[in-house]
């Protein structure tokens, strides 16, 4: 077959954006893999999970194609398992060492007892925030297209430290720097990524996101105030009972009227929380969608431009639908969620074209063998993507 992809592409920046990845996995195939995994996971008391994730990934990668060639995933369950064990060992040893150090310091410098514990807590936070970087490096490093391997360069620890600093900044500005912090961190993840020798690159402008962020931020706060006000108005007596019980002496005799009123108040408060979280999720989807449109519009790889036309409504339908599927099937609808996520992702990622096959070359970057363990440990994730 002649190599005609490059020849026919018009040069220049103005090629239109269109869908670049196609996913054609089927729900039946996914259930075949998922149900066998479920059975083996139960039988092995959970250890099969790592091999199960690998099987699902091998299938999903192989049903995703770019320029009519399918992706390949060559990670192994054993690597995931060993990485998980190693990360667990590191965490245990660190906590143990901190405990010993504190015990030793107790006699000589009682005031310094807190130092080793605080240090280990800080290290764990850095590892937790750096874990997504290491996990992405493992996944990309085991992703191939036309025999060309993906990968990542840079340090997960450095990414973790940077995340700590950025989130502290976001916190002390009462979250007003959050768009800047998340944008810069996403850019780091993109900038470190490669397919062969083709590097991805992203450079957005947080200030363009700030207005949307402020609007959704204010929207969520206003929603909170409205919901809280509504709960107070609709069940004023319950709220009074609640306040009264807080000032009561613990020796006061049991008062059935009060406890009934408090129980009512608790139901109202739970209802308020549900309304707040659903409404808040609805409002945040506006920001999420514009964040990704912005980030992808400012992402490129060589002369490929990326973009997305994802709508807030679509993000909400995806998130809400996934949530309902997970809740109402007690997790057994997981293949539907994979299917929905893959369709959503491939449909909403646009690009001006595929990689220039004449110049795309293999890289001699080392293939990661460990790396996802810390993510699986600290994120608690049975996550597959």
């Amino acid at each position: 077959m002649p190599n005609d992809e490059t020849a026919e592409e018009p040069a220049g920046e103005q090629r239109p954006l269109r869908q670049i990845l196609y996913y054609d996995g089927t729900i039946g195939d996914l259930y075949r893999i998922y149900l066998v995994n479920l059975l083996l996971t139960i039988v092995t008391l959970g250890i099969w999970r790592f091999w199960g994730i690998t099987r699902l990934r091998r299938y999903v990668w192989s049903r995703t194609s770019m320029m009519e060639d399918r992706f390949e995933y060559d990670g192994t369950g054993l690597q995931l398992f060993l990485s998980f064990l190693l990360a667990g060992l590191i965490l245990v040893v660190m906590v143990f060492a901190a405990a010993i150090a504190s015990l030793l310091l107790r006699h000589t410098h009682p005031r310094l007892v807190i130092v080793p514990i605080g240090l280990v807590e800080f290290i764990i936070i850095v590892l937790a925030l750096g874990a997504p970087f290491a996990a992405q490096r493992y996944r990309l490093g085991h992703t191939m297209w036309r025999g060309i391997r993906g990968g990542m360069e840079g340090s997960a620890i450095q990414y973790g430290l940077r995340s700590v600093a950025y989130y502290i900044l976001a916190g002390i500005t009462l979250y007003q720097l959050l768009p800047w912090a998340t944008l810069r961190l996403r850019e780091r993840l993109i900038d470190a990524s490669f397919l062969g020798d083709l590097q991805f690159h992203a450079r957005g402008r947080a200030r363009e996101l700030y207005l949307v962020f402020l609007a959704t931020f204010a929207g969520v706060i206003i929603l909170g105030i409205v919901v809280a006000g509504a709960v107070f108005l609709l069940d004023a007596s319950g709220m009074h009972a609640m306040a009264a019980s807080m000032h009561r002496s613990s020796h006061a005799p049991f008062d059935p009227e009060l406890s009934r009123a408090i129980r009512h108040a608790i139901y109202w408060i739970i209802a308020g929380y549900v309304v707040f979280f659903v409404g808040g999720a609805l409002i945040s989807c506006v920001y999420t969608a514009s964040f990704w449109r912005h980030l992808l519009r400012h992402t490129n790889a060589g002369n490929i431009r990326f973009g997305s036309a994802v709508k807030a409504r679509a993000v909400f339908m995806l998130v809400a639908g996934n949530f309902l599927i997970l809740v109402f099937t007690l997790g057994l609808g997981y293949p539907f969620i994979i299917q929905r996520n893959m369709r959503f992702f491939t449909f909403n990622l646009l690009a001006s074209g595929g990689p220039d096959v004449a110049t795309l070359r293999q890289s001699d970057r080392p293939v990661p063998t460990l790396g996802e363990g810390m993510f699986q440990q600290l994120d608690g994730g049975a996550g597959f993507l």
Partner: protein
Amino acid sequence: MIVPARFFDGQTAVPHGVSVEFRNNDLIIRDAEGAADIVWPVAAVRRSDGDITGRTVGLRCKGETGRLVLQDATLVAALREAGAAIDAPVKWGSRRWTALAAGLCASVAIAAAMVDQLPGLLAPLVPQRVERAWSAQIEGILSVSANVCEGPEGDEALRRLFGRLGTAAGLRSPPDFEVLNTGLVNAFTLPGGRVLVLRGLIDTAQDPDELAGVLAHELGHVKHRDPTREMLRRMALNMIARSLGWGGDVASTMAALSYGRRAEAAADASAVKTLHAAGLRADGLGRFFALLLKRTDDPGVPAFLSDHPTTSDRAVRLQQPATGQSALTADEWRGVRNMCGP
């Protein structure tokens, strides 16, 4: 057999049109543009993609980065026959689906047995040391030691009452107990048979016989080793939930409701027997449930949210004649009520 295929050399992403020949246990890849032949020994050929339907087949050679994409099923079959490690595309007939369904049903049944039956069988085998460790762990969570009430007269009175009830219930040693300064109307039994009595229960009980009824009920749990069984049940639930990736908390909240109706009914029956055997009035427990019912009767709460769905049943079922000794004298009862301060 010579078939056309697509080849990627593992250095660039340029697709090469090639013809592939299978000869003498070698796969010979011949570039249409006249580059040198590439030879893959069939023993080193592997599947490179995870497409279980096998509509296209990606192949690689061990130790090389090149990729061959075949669409010709007969060549793939020939390679497999010659010993190449290429998974056959799996056709799922009804037998496979049946086996899977049977396997899943069996594991559900095993899980159900682990939660429902196994704890009852294993509870008598748990050594006391382990029970005490569990008990200490739970007491740590409830911060028991910070809330203990220590009125000497009340303590002495309760010790005598517990001793009398313990003997009547047929326990080997008098049960250990603690009164806690907490307003909740409840009493718990910990693994190993330690009973925690909450101040709210003593405050709410109208007379010592109602309290004695509840204590006798708790000694029923001690006798049946319900707390140990419950611990084992939660461990099993946690293990199952974790293996499904649900996280341990789901299971413990689901399990935190109670020992289950069967165990509660058994403890109620044991309480009545114990009180009779001790020569005490046995109407206290029934009256206490009736009292709770009157106080918390709330039509606004659906039954499935209430943690004591059978309170009214129990009040009726536990009706007993008001004969027998009172559990405590008036002085003793005053001492018990003042244990956590006047």
